[in-house]
């Protein structure tokens, strides 16, 4: 663990930190208050969810399929908006600050084929920075920096359909790192990866300094990487606490269709 936090510190020195957000340890970076959401077909996906995450916390979001994990993540940057209040970096999400919030929350989707929609890796990683109105030189710098962060230097001109799934997952993370977000929201980052690619990805996630909210079924990843766990079932938060405590509560895990690592 010590080596990971040293690594994080080293990364944060290299980062330009436009909002001064990583240093602010006091206000919660994510605050959901009474968030409820129903899909157009009437299915209730989130039911009065309250969640507060402090800066640099690494939080696992676990629960059975259909528990509302992905729906919850999509609330963090206003892709979905239900009842209740969502505040990111102290700003309550509203029509006026969607652009700002989306640059603060790096959303990594489950399937990299959905996230990588450009003809080349370069254009994909440049998409976020370009839409933040950065100038071309800065966009170039951000792309090189983000690809270096995920160990994918030299992949700029490659086409996404020529990449392996592990490579695609890394580049999907680079597409949001290029926006230098304070928060990373990841949906099933280790899903469908073979052991080697999964190991590399866990190492990569461990090296990133951002506040992290990870929706996953991979309990070993939770155990290794994420000190706090939130259990979601039926759209409700049914448990929230230190990962070790939750993973050793076999009754709780069993009741919500989960398994200890």
């Amino acid at each position, binding site marked *: 663990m010590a080596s990971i936090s040293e690594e994080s510190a080293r990364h944060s020195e290299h980062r330009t930190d436009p909002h001064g957000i990583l240093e602010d340890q006091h206000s919660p970076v994510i605050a959901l208050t009474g968030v409820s959401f129903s899909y157009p077909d009437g299915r209730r996906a989130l039911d009065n969810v309250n969640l507060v995450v402090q800066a640099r916390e690494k939080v696992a979001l676990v629960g059975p399929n259909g528990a509302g994990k992905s729906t919850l993540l*999509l609330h963090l*940057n206003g*892709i979905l908006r239900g009842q209740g209040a969502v505040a990111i970096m102290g700003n309550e999400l509203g029509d006026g600050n969607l*652009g700002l919030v*989306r*640059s603060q*929350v790096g*959303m990594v*989707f489950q*399937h990299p*084929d*959905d*996230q990588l*929609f*450009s*003809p*080349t890796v370069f*254009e994909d990683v*440049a*998409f*976020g920075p*370009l*839409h*933040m109105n950065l100038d*071309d030189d800065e*966009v170039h710098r951000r792309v090189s920096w983000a690809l270096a962060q995920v160990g994918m230097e*030299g*992949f700029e*001109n*490659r*086409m*996404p*359909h*020529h990449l*392996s*799934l*592990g*490579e695609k997952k890394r580049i999907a993370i680079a*597409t*949001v790192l290029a*926006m230098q977000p304070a928060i990373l929201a990841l949906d099933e980052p280790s899903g*469908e*990866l*073979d052991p*080697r*690619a*999964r190991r*590399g990805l866990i190492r990569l996630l461990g090296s990133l300094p951002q506040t992290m909210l990870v929706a996953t079924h991979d309990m070993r990843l939770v155990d290794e990487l994420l000190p706090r766990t939130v259990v979601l079932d039926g759209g409700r938060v049914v448990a929230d606490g230190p990962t070790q405590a939750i993973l050793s509560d076999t009754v709780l895990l069993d009741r919500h269709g989960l398994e200890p690592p």
Partner: protein
Amino acid sequence: MRSGAGSLEETLARSDAPSGAPTSPRGHQGPGSTSASRAGTTVTHIPVLDHYREGNSLIHRLDPRVKLIITLAFIVAVTALPPGAWSSYLLCLLPVLVVVGLAGLNPLLVLRRSLVAIPFALAALTLVVTKEGTAVATIELARWSVSATYEGIVAFVTILVKAWLSVLTATALVSTTPFSDLVAALRTLRIPKVIVSVVSFMYRYVFVIVEEALRLHRAREARSANPTGSAGGSLLWRSRVLGGMIGSLFLRSYERSERIYAAMLSRGFDGDIRNMRMGALGLSDSLIIAASLAYLLAMLLLSHLQRGG
């Protein structure tokens, strides 16, 4: 939402989907090496869609905008040539052959690809008998006669040659220019952004959708066993399954488009498509365009004068 059959198909298809191919050694992966790094799946490489051939020739290094402008001008010029101007057609073929040679492309491969246009040009076959002119052959059918005319044959062969020349040039273009460069070139030529984006998305996702279709197809094949006869199932059953497959493919693509849109919004997309600017064209680029346009113009003028005189 989906029918029971659809979700069963999905489950079956999932089981043999490529799962996390190992990260292969970096740096030397050409477009062709994908199938190797994904051992375990039978069909993932779609050669028909991937025309670009890696290379470092003069033609490869030319600015994509230059290549695109010249190709478009060439196709317009070929179309504007008078019928039966055989020597002009040769003058068109010559520069294309030079380009193919300079780019080090396999002439047979280029030839084979350029033939895709022929079936479409065959639609003009009726010209042979419908065009008025000197009859060269007549078929008598009871109280009805059909005559092939000299003018008709010339018109038909002209269309055939023009179509072939145009596709040949386009083949040379896409074989020497990565698709992403072509998309960027289209953008700078003031083609509406929405149209360029549609082309770009189409190219990105046609591979994904074809792979999904192949998985569905394999899932059907796997269930078409017939203990008493050959595999394949009855025609009725297969066509019913095909209908389901098309529907399922459409639904999946539709759902995917929503996820892609969410991914775009998450990275700050606000309806305005933004791209990096390309640098201005250099003097040599402008000269190459000017020289090519002059050649095409001279050829057009000559062939029309010849015909008029």
